[in-house]
């Protein structure tokens, strides 16, 4: 059996395991909420995790537009970027896909001598992880730029007023 077909076949279980691994890093109360609450408006974090991991998994199997991958990564990482996390923690979820695949499909892969083929996909995962670093750095930058642009808006208004005051003083 081709490893690609095999991984495609195992999609649901691997994804489920992957999500479990990610959620295990949340406090128990939060994790269950993220897992069970299906309303995307009440549970935006859970929603992006479910959606994003699915897209990334598919990208692993088929060639996908790098922009789509970035978009999916962005959705997930944007949330992680504002949580109490170290950068390494925010990126770790990508590597957990490896663990999920090995746990859910490892034995079968062993039995069918697909390990070499698997390593090809693991390289791909590493590439996604590198991409995730970029996205994380950009998101953090955005957090700061949001903050600075907020200050800038305030400052612009202040300068407008100040100029006006100067003008009126001259008059």
């Amino acid at each position, binding site marked *: 059996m081709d490893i690609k077909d095999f991984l495609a076949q195992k999609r649901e279980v691997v994804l489920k395991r992957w999500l479990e691994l990610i959620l295990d890093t949340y406090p*128990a*109360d939060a*994790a*269950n*909420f993220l897992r*069970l*609450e*299906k*309303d*995307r*408006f*009440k549970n935006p974090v859970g*929603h992006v995790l479910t959606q994003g991991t699915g897209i990334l998994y598919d990208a692993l199997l088929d060639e996908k537009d790098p922009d789509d991958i970035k978009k999916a990564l962005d959705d997930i990482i944007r949330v992680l970027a504002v949580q109490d996390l170290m950068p390494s923690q925010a990126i770790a979820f990508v590597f957990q896909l490896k663990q999920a695949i090995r746990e859910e499909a490892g034995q079968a892969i062993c039995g069918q001598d697909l390990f070499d083929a698997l390593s090809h996909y693991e390289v791909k995962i590493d590439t996604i992880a590198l991409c995730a670093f970029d996205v994380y750095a950009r998101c953090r930058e955005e957090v700061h730029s949001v903050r600075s642009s907020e200050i800038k808006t305030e400052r612009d208004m202040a300068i407008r007023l100040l100029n006006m005051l100067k003008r009126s003083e001259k008059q």
Partner: protein
Amino acid sequence: MYLSYSIILILIIIGFSYVAAGLLGCRVLLGIIVPYAAGTIFVVGFVYRVILWARSPVPFHIPAVCGQQISLPWIKSDKIESPHTSWGVVSRMVLEVLLFRSLFRNDRVDINKPERLIYGGNRWLWLGAMIFHWSLLVILLRHLRFFIEPAPGCIEVLQSIDGFFQWPLPALYVTNIFIFLALLYLFGRRLFNPQVRHLSLLSDYFALLLIGSIASTGILMRHFYKVDLMQIKRFSLGILSFDPVTPEGIGTIFYVHLFLVSVLFAYFPFSKLMHMGGVLLSPTRNLMNNSRMKRHINPWDYPVKVHTYEEYEDEFRAAMKEVGLPIEKE
């Protein structure tokens, strides 16, 4: 930890009444003294607790509004969720108390993927709470047949509806099953939902276990360990007419049941079970949304230090004068 403590507590209570009534035969204690004491604690405690609340005023008008306000005549206002009449408030409270309106509010839309399984987590809570409370009410009303002579017809009708299965003998009451299932659900939530488990305290488990034990002993008495109803009615009428008699030849199970009920009554005023009275006093629900129509008085209002216009003008007069803003004092 809290869970095991509450289980131990319940076992002690049951064990105590079993030993006291069954083995030691302290019938006067369990049949007369304890129920009277519990009843007194309940009445005094309940009134005291409500008085504690009532002694503090509602200084500000703070309803949580859940519907369109009354404003312009051509905008339809929500007369119940944003009441501006007494009837509106009464309707809101009735919906809240009888149908648990707010718990029901958890409606959801999942537009994104309609085919996906939707967990109605909180509608379940509403359903569980409704079944539990309504069953409890029906069961209490059914018990009136032991407390009232002659038992009113409506109670008998209720009884026959509740026991419409007519099976086995004596007929199984639907509410007995319902209350059991509801209790199981409410208890299960506390155990298995990490959010709820995280915030549950000893008293949360204890209240559920206590009511559960009362229901169990009641069911046991009805279907497995039969007791002489004549004696029980005579006993309860005696208690009520302040001419108590200890029933003779009644199974220990009755004393256990009675003792658990007494514990519940005595525990009631000191616990969260007081939500029964408290819900009616909740200022976010029982006030009209009319605070701009009618002035609400704060009884402990006191004068505060303000920055008066005069002080303000004193500070800025020169500048105001210069730019031609009107001032009070030259």
